[in-house]
């Protein structure tokens, strides 16, 4: 049974495992990578990078909710140039495929950021273009809410970038299927469904929002049924691979994402709660596939969809 292959083909990019450390939860230096997490992981995503360095948001950045986590990090990072100069080569050393998450703040920043990264394109598994960060004023989710916004950002990125281009969508989209289709139409290689859900927390004693920016992004098991629905919608709307992101914290969750049509599954908050999650999911998936007679992830993918299933 351990002979079952968890390899997944993301439009030509083949990963040993469909499990990817999501953007924003994984250290930017391999010296800090918990080795507990590596078995089972097929790739890692960088923190969301901006053109200029960003200090991130002030005040409280994390707030626990029932089975969930609100965050307002605000894309703290040292800027893309610093990343390329100081961090990228280090991140490649361990040999795990690397996805770079980019969060431009304007159309011209799209050009400049992909331009800066272009020489390194052969080294990267993909760029994940983040049109969905809820915790910044410029860029981020503002693009992702409408099909038009996604189309224009994707088109611009596509022109500037010869490598693989994934578009990370937002649950706050008016219609997720539409935004997924817009990404596909403009040449994206895959879509990621999705980023965090806009939530709020209040500080009762001080009678004010917990977060400086008032709203924050909800992740974790609480959102799993919602994220699964988005993956279902996205996989129904496009032919390019769909990556799942949202609340996965067990092999059952990962299996459901794949049955709904996902080609890969990103793990975010689930890793914070359990470092050995990738290994556990990989094991659980293999056992499940064995029981169900799935010979490969490809066979399993979308098997719960009416078109494909029984």
């Amino acid at each position: 049974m351990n002979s079952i292959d968890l390899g997944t083909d993301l439009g030509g990019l083949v990963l040993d495992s469909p499990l990817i450390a999501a953007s924003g939860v994984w250290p930017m230096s391999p010296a800090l990578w918990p080795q507990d997490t590596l078995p089972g992981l097929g790739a890692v995503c960088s923190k969301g990078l901006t053109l200029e360095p960003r200090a991130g948001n002030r005040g409280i950045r994390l707030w626990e909710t029932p089975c969930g986590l609100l965050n307002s990090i605000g894309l703290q990072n040292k800027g893309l140039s610093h990343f390329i100069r100081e961090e990228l080569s280090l991140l490649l050393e361990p040999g795990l495929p690397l996805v770079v998450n980019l969060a431009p703040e304007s159309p011209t920043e799209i050009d400049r950021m992909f331009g800066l990264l272009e020489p390194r394109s052969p080294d990267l598994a993909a760029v994940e273009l983040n049109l969905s960060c809820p915790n910044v004023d410029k860029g981020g989710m503002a693009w992702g809410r409408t099909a038009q916004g996604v189309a224009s950002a994707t088109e611009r990125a596509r022109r500037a970038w010869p490598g693989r281009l994934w578009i990370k969508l937002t649950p706050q989209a008016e219609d997720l299927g539409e935004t997924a289709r817009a990404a596909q139409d403009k040449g994206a290689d895959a879509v990621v469904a999705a980023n965090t859900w806009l939530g709020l927390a209040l500080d009762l004693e001080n009678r004010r929002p917990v977060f400086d920016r008032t709203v924050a992004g909800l992740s974790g098991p609480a959102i799993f049924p919602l994220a699964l629905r988005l993956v279902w919608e996205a996989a129904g709307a496009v032919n390019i691979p769909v990556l799942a992101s949202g609340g996965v914290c067990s092999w059952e969750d990962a299996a459901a994402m794949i049955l709904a049509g996902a080609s890969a599954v990103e793990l975010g908050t689930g890793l914070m709660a359990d470092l050995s999650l990738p290994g556990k999911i990989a094991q659980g998936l293999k056992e499940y596939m064995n029981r169900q007679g799935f010979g490969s992830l490809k066979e399993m993918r979308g098997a719960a969809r009416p078109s494909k299933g029984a």
Partner: protein
Amino acid sequence: MPRANPLESRARLVKNQTLGAEISCLTLEAPWIAGSARPGQFIMVGCAPSQAGAPEPLLMRPLAVAGVEGGLVSLLMAVKGRGTRFLAAQEPGAELTLRGPLGNGFSEPKGPGLLLVAGGLGAAPLLSVHRRFRKRKDLKIDFILGVPGKGFESLVDLLAQEIPDLQVFSDDGCMGAQGNACTALPAAPDEVWACGPVPMYRALLDRLDPGVPVLVSLEARMGCGYGGCLGCVVPTKQGNLRACCEGPVFDGREILWHEFH
């Protein structure tokens, strides 16, 4: 190149000692932590019941290593919300998930004098400092502990047993002298290591000569504990630094206190 050892594992609770209504001393069998933890480092402790299902509460709780002995790690914990309430209710034999050791911890004391200043449960990491260095002949360690008052008797007793010259202050004077940890600071200590609430740090920095090195151990909400999420950052003159990696021990004069929530 990744960290050499596993960070996370299950550990058996060996002892759960109640120190008054709202404080517990937990002893856990965790050789991989006991073997490598430095004073001032901390661990994250899982607080979700182990029945399969969604973890709730979701996040692990950061707690300082208060002592190590053989393969055992001890923690001194105030019962605050649902995570610590869950931990305080566990019985010996229970298994908990531990992640660590985490953070930078304190460096080697420069000597010849080291003043430890603890506010309440801030005693935990400083106790491990004291335990580690008390035998060093070239080092004179003083330990000041400030507590609010009632409810902290057992904690004070526990420390006083180990630290004969412990100086205790309580807000209401019911234990030790009346006052707080900063009431009777020596004129010019060689070095100060402190752990306690933010107002204590501010008072400390106010009162000490600007030339005295002051290290503080800071509390910040934590997500991952291993440097991934940037949820725990502290505003410093060097920018926002992670309490779980660059901290929790910082140079007190580097913190932008007015921005610290």
